[in-house]
């Protein structure tokens, strides 16, 4: 069964028949977590770095921001019994317009926010594919923990 995760949304499930998928990550970032012992998987698609931009919105929709969405994703997995040391964390997205030093740099800021949060909490990134100017579709197979990315019609493993 395929569960679609929209922009500014997330899903966590213990259903090993499920795959979680999120489409067209641009400057947004997709965070996939998977507990290898328990086989619980989660996927977050956040859009902006900092919930300080709109605290009310963040309360209503924590998955919109890195600073509220990432903790919410982990919390939900922990509630299902997942353990930090068993989690495999994979990251994709954070694209930029052409011209690297531009001020349209939500992608870069999204990535920096994520690194900060994970570092503070001692969480290691198993694999990542970020930056560039491509759009990425990200898929997590909850049964196997396999994460794939599709860009320009080509699927690859992350």
């Amino acid at each position, binding site marked *: 069964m395929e569960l679609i995760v929209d922009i500014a949304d997330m899903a966590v499930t213990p259903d090993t028949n499920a795959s979680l998928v999120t489409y067209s990550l641009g400057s947004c970032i997709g965070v996939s977590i998977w507990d290898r012992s328990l086989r619980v998987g989660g996927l977050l698609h956040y859009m902006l770095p900092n919930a300080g931009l709109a605290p009310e919105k963040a309360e209503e929709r924590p998955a919109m921001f890195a600073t509220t969405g990432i903790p919410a994703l982990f919390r939900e997995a922990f509630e299902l019994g997942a353990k930090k040391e068993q989690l495999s964390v994979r990251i994709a997205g954070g694209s930029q317009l052409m011209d690297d030093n531009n001020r349209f740099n939500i992608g870069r800021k999204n990535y920096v926010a994520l690194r900060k949060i994970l570092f503070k909490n001692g969480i290691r990134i198993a694999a990542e594919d970020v930056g560039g100017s491509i759009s990425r579709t990200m898929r997590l197979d909850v049964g196997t923990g396999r994460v794939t990315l599709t860009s*320009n019609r080509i699927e690859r493993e992350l």
Partner: protein
Amino acid sequence: MTTAIEMIEGIDALPPLPGTTQRLMAIVGEPNGSLDDVVDIIKHDQAMTSQVLKLCNSASSGVSRKIGSLREAIGFLGTKKVFDLAIAAHTGGMLSKQQVGYDLEAGAMWRQSVAVAVGSAAIAKHLRLQDAHLLFTAGLLHDIGKVVLSEHVAESYAEILRLVTDEKLSFIEAEHRVLGFSHEEVGALVAERWQLPEAIVRCIRYHHDPFSLAVPDPLVDAVYLASTVCLMIGIGGGADGLSYRADQSVLDRHGLDERDLELIAMQMLSGLQEAELFMQAPASE
């Protein structure tokens, strides 16, 4: 390379705008299209009339009694809102189709178009631009050229991708190099064919490269910002990804900073969700 004749044939093959839309378009240039004008146009269109009434009487509208007449309904929603919804509903069939060349599934382009429409209008309001009433339509139709160009892009996709990846051309530069036309140029031709106001034609023509205009145009800037933010947050993102050039001078001209871009992104996402609730994504034919 695609010939000009092939391209014109592609434009000719597009369905004409429905009569209701054409009549609405004719008054779009008037900042204060009156209630009477809009009622007159819409009352002949049964589907539109029932949509407007449904909208008013939906649970989310907060109206406590049933609204039965079109005039009352339009008075309640506001002529501008009804006008925008009518245009969005009428172009929905065309904008909802799958566009193979751009990797857009059925419905994806419609979502993107509505988001850019909502975003352009919000930016125009924020910047207090004159002629802001044109921007919902300009935003909605900004990528209309993709509908014509899609199959040509599909045929030449490998070469376009190579130019974007290896030679670092933007997607429109690659389209122009390989096909002879970019989706901006074709879109502007379509808009001219439909006799849309000149200001809208210009927005469609320059929505990725406002820097090509000798004299900056604030309306173009608004559509540029909305479509750029939309690409960034990936609403209906496709094969072109973020392969477009950033133009910081647009931000400088209007005194906008990065925080404003983030606020625009937020507004656009909620505006799209509201529009989707109202209209439901029209099914593709």
